[in-house]
């Protein structure tokens, strides 16, 4: 018997931004339930609140109303410092623009999240190597980001996101900046992480071709979600 457990649960979430005296509603009564081990793609027009959803799940932003439970923690109620520790343990984030630190090598970038753990130096080195080998960059350990192609940079970004073995992988348009070929490589990699390692993945994308790699696709428009 398989117990399907929701690892991400958003209930009646409302989010709006205030700019001047104007309130911009982004999410209204938004509900989402992601079972453990699911690969979910979120699609929707620009400005529909996709990035906002990921930020809320990662605890980088707070809802105006509603509750968000992620990996057993009520994210919307945590204090800043606890949230940072929780995020280090449970969340891996992949960015559209890779966001590698330019003065650090591929291996050092991947090692960054491990600096927050109590792992020994040799243990860290072992995990960094394993993560980079997993994304097919075992031979690029000492390259700086500017010495890598966009696709390679994004794979380093993915290695950095998974090196700490987080519960959930969040990816905001991970292929948004890549050509078809590099995008395919990245998506194949994400699918492998999902299938072979059982990672829960929530990915935002514009591209239906990319969304096809996911198990489930959620269409959002102004905070109204509808699954396909």
């Amino acid at each position, binding site marked *: 018997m398989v117990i399907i457990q929701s690892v991400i649960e958003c209930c009646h979430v409302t989010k709006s931004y205030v700019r001047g005296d104007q309130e911009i509603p982004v999410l209204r009564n938004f509900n989402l339930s992601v079972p453990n081990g699911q690969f979910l793609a979120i699609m929707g027009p620009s400005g529909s609140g996709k990035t906002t959803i990921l930020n809320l799940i990662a605890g980088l932003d707070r809802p105006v109303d509603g509750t968000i439970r992620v990996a057993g923690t009520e994210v919307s109620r945590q204090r800043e410092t606890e949230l940072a520790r929780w995020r*280090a343990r449970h969340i891996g*984030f992949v960015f559209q623009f890779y966001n590698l630190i330019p*003065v650090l090598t591929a291996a050092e970038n991947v090692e960054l*999240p491990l600096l927050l753990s109590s792992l020994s130096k040799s243990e860290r080195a072992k995990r960094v190597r394993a993560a980079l080998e997993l994304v097919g960059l075992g031979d690029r350990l000492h390259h700086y980001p500017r010495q890598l192609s966009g696709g390679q940079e994004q794979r380093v970004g993915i290695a950095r996101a998974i090196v700490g073995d987080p519960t959930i992988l969040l990816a905001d348009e991970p292929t948004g900046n890549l050509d078809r070929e590099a995008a395919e490589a990245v998506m194949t990699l994400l699918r492998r992480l999902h299938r072979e390692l059982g990672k829960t993945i929530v990915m935002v994308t514009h591209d239906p071709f990319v969304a096809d790699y996911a198990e489930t696709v959620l269409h959002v428009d102004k905070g109204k979600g509808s699954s396909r």
Partner: protein
Amino acid sequence: MTLVTLIIRNVHRQVLRVTLTVLGIATIILAFNLIITTVRAWYAGVEAAAPNRLITRHAASLSIHLPLSYRDRLAAIDGITGVTFANWFGGVYRDAKGFFPQFAVDPESFLDLHPELMLDPDERRDFLSDRRGCLIGRRLADLYGWRVGDVIPLKGTLYPGDWEFIVRGIYRGAEPSTDENWMLIRWDSVNERRRQFDPDRADTVGWYVLRIADSSTAGALSRAVDDTFANSVAETRTETEQAFQAGFVAMSGSIVRALELLAVVLNGVTLLVLANTLVMAVRERTREWAVLRTLGFERRHLAALITGEALLIAALGSIMGIAMTIPAIDLYATLVSTKLGNFFQQLVVYPSTLVLGALATLITACCAAVIPLVTALRSNVADDLRHIG
């Protein structure tokens, strides 16, 4: 890799900007060290004063002399274990620039009361037996290249006429703070000339130096001395040698105070220079801080990274500043001693001065880090990630 690796790499990003900042801080430290060295040289004179010596002078002014007859009355006071005296000779060597302090002293008792003037026994004997003899300090001897047996011609100002003294000895200071720029001549020989040409002012002394048995009685004894001569022809004012020296430099003391203030102001300049660099460096990396926070870095980690960067730049500046100070101080000493005579006898850099400068800079660096740190911590991660940078 550790956080320190990241700090070092971050400092290395803008080589030109960081180099200029480091040079700026180094220059400030150099100025700070020169100022503190000057101030300390100044105080060294005051500190060199022995706590067990009192100075008795005319109550009205140092330029009015006291009768020689006070000597025996002073010696008779309980608690005073030695009495000597001196006159300001005020001679000029070659021209007005060639100024150095000359004291006409009672040779035996003066040397007896000033054991910090260390002298070869033979030289001491020669000085005591030659009325035209003189003693000079080692620094003074070095300055003019004088050696034992040389004749020093002086033009008298307070004691008119041309004088010639033969160097009978060169003393060394027992302490680094001992003034080695004095010239000691014999009171009896100058007084003899006075008797001939200015008999009214003969047999007087500029001030008395008293040795006391117990320095804790200095206050009581000073009052006892002054009470003894109250209502007499020449009333006295007695104070510790330290107080006397401090008073001697009192007027210039306010310049010293100004210099001290300047040293503090310099730290303010460091603060601004460093804060400026840090604010730019931190703002340029807004997105990276947001990324680090997304990875789970806490406030304290960011604080460590930014403060570490400030400290590293400040430390580089400090090291360079110290490296610059050591040769610069020699140059400065030459400049100051030729322009101001030997007024600053002690222009040496104490290690504690260097430590003080570096420490002040590092503390300042921590303050400078606060401004960019607060900006970085206040920033909204979600917003910062949206901005493409």
